[in-house]
């Protein structure tokens, strides 16, 4: 066996030179990639309808009765309380969908095509999360604007904090979406996750108050319940229960480690 290939001689024209042009890009995010991903998002009419139209429509259906605008929950009226619930629901839908979009791209073979480029898998995932959070923000803001013109009122700072918490907390669902996107082989993974999210929204009391009973007891360990409590705390002024924080952190840990586990399997060389 010769060793010609492994010991490239200096001065050889075909030996790879250590030129900077060939070095892979540094930095986690790539602006051109991010821009294309955002543009794709805007083109996806189905995603837009589900995340930007459905939550405000739900809000208008559930939250604008005269009784609600008149009734206070502490620092805001019930309409504002329902508005933040719907902002959380919208952000959840958006971030889960954004994360789960990796499933479609895996099914189409795009992630395999990307492995023929210097793109780092971490950049791909980070970009997906950023895009998911952008859509989540848009969804939460649409609900808020619709809410404010439809009778939601209260302490402005507290309402703003509540909406901000709904958006920031939805990052947990971006991790959930990624986990599911890497776990489920389906090309239409959101058709599975849509009903799951609706169930989780009920469990978090986002659509209707939970009241008492078996479902309410089970609901307390759901990933939406703790987050909903945190989101509403500024409006009620009740303070954030410790177990709600534990709930959110525990589910975040589950989703992030689940996504990381599946992601490593997906990008591992077999």
């Amino acid at each position: 066996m010769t060793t010609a290939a492994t010991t490239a001689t200096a001065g050889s024209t075909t030996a790879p030179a250590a030129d900077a042009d060939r070095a892979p890009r540094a930095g986690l995010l790539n602006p051109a990639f991010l821009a294309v991903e955002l543009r794709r998002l805007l083109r996806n009419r189905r995603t837009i309808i589900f995340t930007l139209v459905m939550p405000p429509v739900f809000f208008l259906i559930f939250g604008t009765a005269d009784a609600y605008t008149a009734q206070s929950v502490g620092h805001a009226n019930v309409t504002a309380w329902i508005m933040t619930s719907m902002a959380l629901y919208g952000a959840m839908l958006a971030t889960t969908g954004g994360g789960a979009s990796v499933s479609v791209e895996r099914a189409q073979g795009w992630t395999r095509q990307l492995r023929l480029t210097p793109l780092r898998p971490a950049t791909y995932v980070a970009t997906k999360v950023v895009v998911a959070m952008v859509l989540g923000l848009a969804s939460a803001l649409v609900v808020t604007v619709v809410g404010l013109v439809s009778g939601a009122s209260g302490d402005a700072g507290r309402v703003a904090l509540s909406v901000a918490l709904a958006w920031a907390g939805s990052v947990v669902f971006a991790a959930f979406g990624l986990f599911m996107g890497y776990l489920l082989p389906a090309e239409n993974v959101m058709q599975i996750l849509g009903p799951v999210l609706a169930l989780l929204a009920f469990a978090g009391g986002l659509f209707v108050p939970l009241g008492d009973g078996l479902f309410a007891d089970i609901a307390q360990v759901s990933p939406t319940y703790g987050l909903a409590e945190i989101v509403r705390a500024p409006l009620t002024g009740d303070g954030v229960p410790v177990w709600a924080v534990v709930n959110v952190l525990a589910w975040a840990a589950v989703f992030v480690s689940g996504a990381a586990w599946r992601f490593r399997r997906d990008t591992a060389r077999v």
Partner: protein
Amino acid sequence: MDATAPLAPPDAARAPAAGPLAIDLRGLRKSFGPVRAVDGIDLAVRPGEVVAFLGPNGAGKTTTIDLLLGLARPDAGTVRVHGLDPDRAIAEGRVAAVLQTGGLLKDLTVRETVRVTASFFRATRSTAEVLRRAGIEDIADRPVGKCSGGQQQRLRFALALLPDPDVLVLDEPTTGMDVEGRRAFWDALRADADRGRTILFATHYLDEADAYADRVVLVSHGRVVADGSAAQVKNLAAGRLVSAALPGADDAEVAALRALPGVRAVERRGDRLLVRTTDSDGVARHLLTATAASDVEITARGLEDAFLALTGDGATTTDPTVGTTADRPTETARSLA
């Protein structure tokens, strides 16, 4: 008789030791469970060579390419691309590939796909240039989902050209294309190869290997069974097959046939004798005048036969130039027709 005998042994291609090899695969092995997909492949490709990796489906071509690109890790053996390991070669854009499994996003346009892929590299050829060289500048603004299979394949080719790679690897690049699409694709690739790039393409179309490669590497059951120029491979197909009914042919009769000028091999199959020869007239005359043979048939051997003989199951056990071929129309045989 060894299967590789008509051609140069694989190691001969390694002769000039000057400079690094473009592709250097040594002792590659890869199994999936009990299946040995790659079973000891050695391959040395010099810069500028255009090599066809030819074999039937399941021969181990795609697995070898995955190993070459670092998409899979070998159980044993080493991979070097211009002296680099595959991950580094990909990251530096020194090797690029057009794969069967590489998907494209249907909602992006052709141009957007090229632009976003270019953004992953530090420096690339221009979008306009790769679109032109792949022959798809006229459909740059078309959504990928509305492109034909052939157009999508040329888009993958354009993407592969972006980093101006030293080595271009293509796995069955024209699968599923119509005749027009195949021609357009090969025209684009051929023009690129003329610029001196090293190209390795896998195919199960013998005519593609013959038309576009300087060198043909035949693989079967995860091993290289022949390695030589396209002309050498075509020589395998020279000559004819003479078949005759000769019940109870004895060893002396077989030996007499073997001794005839031009006869390469004789095989007994049931009551029939199969004679591979470059002088079919002489064999027929001998059979009809000096033996009790009847029902003589003479058939020309196509490239397809030679291909199947070398890559089929019989290749390592019996004389590869006769038998186990024409009466076994496989998927591969049809695709070669």
